[in-house]
Each structure stands twice: as structure tokens, then as C-alpha cells.
């Protein structure tokens, strides 16, 4: 460590010498913020009373940051910051385009909901096991995955979110939770290993991990390199993460065991990270290979949505039923990926954002309902409408939204996807989406009739006592419901955003230009 105040060589060969505008810091800020706050909360692990007071405002600031980033990206286009001043492709770039910024903002909103809901749902034991630190760290992983412009770095963020999710799954270390967590951990590790194998293979072929660099080089290598093998490996790895048929079995095996707020967070966000990776890697990096695989993806998509909703229809436990509905929604998004047209991709993006909000809110509603009615089982639940009409109304809105009925946010992406499939003559894919919608309506209708409308077993309507909800849970639920209503009755901005994001995937020149400003202009 002897001091040498003079640099040895000309730094401009390896370093970017430009000053970073303050607004570009928004690219790194959300992830850094999550890690810093996660660390602080971990130090406060024993102070269970202070934790939510720190975590909830922190998540609020995170929402502000991600929305500021979204506004920045809408105004100025894709933003890149390459870590440690190294010039790309050697430094790790964080490149945020519309897709990344849109997903980041939506997921931050969902996390804020989970933080508020967790205040009443997670008891002191769960907090001592680290609910809030893990919540912040899993958000660091999710946001990092949405923002990074480097494939290996994407792998690292997957690991960060996976390890935090293990922690969240076993809060309290109950027997049933450990059982679910082992299945979840093992199958996810298999998927992550496949991802790593594929990435090693990709590095061998390309000699670069920077996504913008790969996008440029893929067209040169297309004739000679075995890109189809590579892309098929990625498809398998991410389809497993996203819980697409036939590699979806880990999700129903584990999502009903953790604390409800954890299930809600996972259902909302984790599978969508898989969808995001599919959109990014298959949609942007390897569009030709995606085109070749599109029939396979379409079949997987149709089977995922139909079998998912049939699974949901067969369940007695409401949480398990919702887990299958998550899978069914993944099928709808995969259909958009299979189509690959601007309309298809934008439908998938819109649907993913809708699903983040609505699935999380549905789990919240179910949790509140179970606390009022005392059960997740359809056979013994009942009378929730009589106990609390507000909750029943909120749940009904969410049910209609998840089934894709107007005037809520599920309708528009489904219309976009059905129209996109009919445009290319894939009537069977359009049919599958519509049949899924019908079956979903039946599934959620059954839950609503049995758990909400029907009087509780063994109780007459006269003996029902109205029950009030805790403030935190109500705010979290009502906030997310408000989002789905707003996106349903005023869908133009979201639709325009999704369409622009899809255009950015199909024509990645802006993305490349943002990472390599000099080369592209030469």
C-alpha cells in the first residue's frame, strides 16, 4: 500500500471521463437505498417496535425514487451508468429502459403495500427473524434484476433475491414452512444453475456479458454460433423461474406455506422477474431465435394458462387456488412473448404489471378474510360479506380484475393479446386466453360465493357480528385496489408506456446507444 500519487497510465483508455449528471444517479439509487436500509434494519433486528417505523418510510422513499426514475426515462430515454467508471463492456452497466423502469416502479409500489400490510400480519417473532431486512434485500435483488444491463450481474441479482426469499419463506421456522422451503429452494437452485450454465456458454461464445454488446454481436455470430442451444437453455431456466408449464410444480408446493404477506410478495413479484428476464433475453437479445421457438413457447403458454386455472378450480384451500391463478397469469404473459409482435409484447408487459398489483392485493384480501372468517378452507369459510362488506367489495373488484372483466386493469392487456394473436391467425392462442378468462371467472366466482356470500357454516345471518379491519391492512389493500381501478378506467397512459417499452425491446438501438454513445455515433 505504498503511496503513489501519480496515476501510471492514461486513464481515459479505461475510464469514462464524463461527469455523471445528478439525475443519472437515479439509476443506481433504488438498489443502493435498499441495500443500505436492509443493513440498517438488520442492525435493528432486535428492536421489533422500531423496524416498521424505519422500513415503511424507506419503502415510501423507494417508491418516489423509482417513479422519479420512470419519469426520467420517459423524458430522456434509456439511461446507463457503468459502475466504477470502467468503460463498457468491461464495467458492469446498469441500463434502465422503459421496461425496466416501469417494472421497477410497479414492484416498489407492491413492496410498499407489503411493508404496510406486514405491520399487522407479521408478529414479533417474524420481525425478529428479519421480515423487514429481508423485504428490503429482496427488493434490492428484484430492482437490480430489472435495471442491470449485464447478464452475469442479472444472475447475481437473482441470487440476492433467491437468498432473501429463502429467509422470508422460513420466518418462524415452522415444520410446514420448512417443507415448502426445501422444495422451493431445491427447484429454484436447479433453475439458477441452468441459468449459470447458459451464461457460461454465452460468455464462451460472445466473450462479453454486456447486454448491449451481445445485442450487437448476436447478428454477426448468428450464422456460425449455436445460438439456438443457448437460447433454449435460457428459455428453460427462466420458464422455471416464471413457473411456466411443465416446470411450474415448485410454485403450488410452496406458496401456501409462508406467512401471508410473504406469499403475496412472491406471487406479485418473483415470477414476474422470470418473465422480465424472458422478455429481455429472448425478446431483445435473441429475437431471431425467439421467432424459431415461438411455436413451442405458444404451446407452453396455452398449457400453462389452461392447466393453471384448472388447478385453481380444483383446490379447496384459497391460497393454493391463488397460487394456481398466478401460474395461469404467467401463461398469458408467455403468450405475448410467443407472439413477439409489438402488440404481443406490450400486452405481456401490461399484463405483468397488472398481475404484480392484483395478485399481491388478492393475497392480502384473502389474508384479511381468513383473519375475519378464521379459515383458508372453502369448506369451512363463509359469511365474510356479512362480517365486512368493504372487504367483500374490494375482493370482488380484485376477482373481476384477475378474470379480465371490465372495468378493471385485467381487461386491457387481454384485449391486446387476443387481438395480437388474431392478427397473425393464431386463433387457438386467442381461444386459450378467452377460455382461461372464463374458467378464471368460474374459479373466483366459486370462491366468492362460498367464502363471502354464503353464511358461515353453523351460523344464521342473524348471529353474524360485523368485524372491523386493521388500519394497515385496509390501507395496503385499498391502495392496490385503487391502482387496478385507475389502470382499468384510464388505461391509455399505461398502454402507451407498455407499447413504448415493447418498441424498445424490438428495436434496441436506443438501448445500445445509451451504453456505447461514442461507437454508435461513428
Amino acid at each position: 500500500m505504498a503511496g503513489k500519487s501519480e496515476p501510471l497510465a492514461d486513464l481515459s483508455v479505461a475510464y469514462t471521463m464524463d461527469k455523471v449528471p445528478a439525475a443519472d444517479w437515479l439509476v443506481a439509487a433504488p438498489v443502493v437505498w435498499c441495500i443500505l436500509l436492509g443493513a440498517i434494519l438488520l442492525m435493528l433486528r432486535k428492536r421489533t417496535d422500531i423496524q416498521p417505523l424505519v422500513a415503511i418510510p424507506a419503502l415510501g422513499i423507494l417508491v418516489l425514487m423509482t417513479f422519479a426514475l420512470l419519469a426520467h426515462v420517459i423524458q430522456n430515454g434509456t439511461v446507463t451508468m457503468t459502475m466504477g467508471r470502467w468503460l463498457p463492456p468491461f464495467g458492469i452497466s446498469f441500463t434502465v429502459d422503459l421496461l425496466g423502469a416501469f417494472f421497477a416502479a410497479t414492484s416498489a409500489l407492491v413492496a410498499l403495500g407489503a411493508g404496510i400490510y406486514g405491520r399487522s400480519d407479521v408478529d414479533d417473532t417474524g420481525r425478529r427473524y428479519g421480515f423487514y431486512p429481508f423485504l428490503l434485500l429482496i427488493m434490492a435483488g428484484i430492482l437490480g434484476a430489472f435495471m442491470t444491463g449485464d447478464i452475469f450481474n442479472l444472475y447475481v441479482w437473482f441470487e440476492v433475491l433467491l437468498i432473501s426469499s429463502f429467509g422470508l419463506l422460513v420466518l418462524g421456522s415452522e415444520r410446514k414452512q420448512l417443507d415448502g422451503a426445501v422444495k422451493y429452494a431445491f427447484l429454484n437452485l436447479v433453475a439458477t444453475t441452468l441459468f449459470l450454465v447458459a451464461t457460461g456458454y454465452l460468455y464462451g461464445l460472445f466473450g462479453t456479458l454486456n447486454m448491449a454488446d451481445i445485442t450487437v454481436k448476436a447478428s454477426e455470430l448468428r450464422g456460425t454460433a449455436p445460438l439456438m442451444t443457448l437460447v433454449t437453455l435460457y428459455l428453460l431456466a427462466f420458464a422455471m423461474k416464471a413457473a411456466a408449464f411443465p416446470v411450474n410444480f415448485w410454485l403450488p408446493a410452496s406458496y401456501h406455506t409462508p406467512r401471508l404477506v410473504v406469499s403475496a410478495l412472491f406471487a406479485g413479484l418473483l415470477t414476474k422477474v422470470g418473465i422480465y428476464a424472458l422478455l429481455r433475453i429472448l425478446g431483445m437479445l435473441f429475437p431471431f431465435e425467439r421467432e424459431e421457438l415461438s411455436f413451442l413457447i405458444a404451446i407452453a403458454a396455452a398449457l400453462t394458462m389452461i392447466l393453471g386455472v384448472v388447478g385453481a378450480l380444483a383446490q379447496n384451500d384459497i391460497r393454493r387456488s391463488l397460487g394456481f391463478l398466478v401460474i395461469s397469469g404467467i401463461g398469458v404473459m408467455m403468450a405475448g412473448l410467443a407472439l413477439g409482435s409489438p402488440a404481443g409484447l406490450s400486452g405481456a408487459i401490461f399484463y405483468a404489471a397488472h398481475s404484480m398489483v392484483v395478485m399481491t392485493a388478492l393475497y392480502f384480501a384473502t389474508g384479511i378474510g381468513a383473519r375475519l372468517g378464521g379459515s383458508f378452507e372453502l369448506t369451512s369459510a363463509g359469511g365474510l360479506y356479512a362480517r365486512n362488506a368493504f372487504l367483500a367489495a374490494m375482493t370482488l373488484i380484485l376477482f373481476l380484475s384477475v378474470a379480465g372483466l371490465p372495468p378493471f386493469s385485467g381487461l386491457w392487456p387481454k384485449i391486446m393479446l387476443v387481438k395480437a394473436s388474431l392478427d397473425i391467425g393464431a386463433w387457438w392462442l386467442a381461444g386459450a386466453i378467452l377460455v382461461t378468462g372464463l374458467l378464471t371467472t368460474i374459479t373466483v366466482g366459486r370462491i366468492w360465493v362460498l367464502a363471502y356470500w354464503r353464511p358461515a357454516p353453523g351460523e344464521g345471518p342473524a348471529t353474524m357480528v360485523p368485524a372491523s379491519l386493521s388500519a394497515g391492512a385496509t390501507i395496503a389493500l385499498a391502495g392496490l385496489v385503487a391502482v387496478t381501478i385507475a389502470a382499468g378506467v384510464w388505461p391509455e397512459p399505461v398502454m402507451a408506456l407498455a407499447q413504448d417499452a415493447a418498441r424498445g425491446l424490438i428495436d434496441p438501438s436506443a438501448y445500445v446507444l445509451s451504453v456505447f454513445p461514442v461507437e454508435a455515433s461513428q
Partner: protein
Amino acid sequence: MRTVIFRSIAPYLTSLMVLFSVFVLLRGHNEPGGGFIGGLIAASALAIYGIACGVAPVRRAIYFHPMAIAAFGLFMAAMAGVLSVFAGVPYMSGLWIYPQIFGAEVALSSVLVFDVGVYLVVVGAISSIALALEERDRD
């Protein structure tokens, strides 16, 4: 494992290993070493002390909970990158200052802060696991 020989040698061994771990940490910038390997050495030092003298003295000796140490390391490592805001360079850029201490120039950098953070994360996380396992052993 509580033999007289081991028990009398363990405190010296532990202090020597912790000292060596700091040496490895500081050496790491230009030569083999660094925060990760240094942290592993320090964690094994604490584990040896725990095996010889029991877990409770170790917990007393490090004062803070191992997880809190790891968390502080994570905080430090992330903050090391945030320093670049003030220099107007991207996150995690290496920043150097060269103060004169007793006439000798000492190179200090944000990289060192990051490395110390990594050291603490490794010490905290590994010794947290090791101490928990040693505690279970006695049950």
C-alpha cells in the same frame, strides 16, 4: 475439546489469527489477500476460541451480535460506493486520497472501505453460523 493445552493456547492463537487477518485484509489491494479471505481467517479464529472456551465468552468478546457486525459491513461496503456522488463519478468508482502521515505518504481509498466492509460481512456471517452450530453441539 476442552483439554488444558488447547485451552491455554487458544487465546494466543486467536489473537494471532485476528492480527494476521487484518494484515491479509490490508495487503489485499495489490497482493494476494483481501477482505474475503481476511474475514474467513478472523471467523476461524473466533471459531477456535469458541471450541476451546465455549460460545458465551466469544459472544462477550465480540460484544455485538455477529449478524449486526455483518450488517454494518454491508452498510460500509454500500456506502463506499456512495462516496462517488461527491466526486461526480459513477457508483463504486475507486477514489484515492494521499495524506502525509509522519512524513510518509499513505494511500487511502474508497476501495479499502469497501474491502473492510466485505471483511466484516464475512466475519459476521460465518461466525454467526459457526457459533450457532457450536451452541447446538453442547445441547
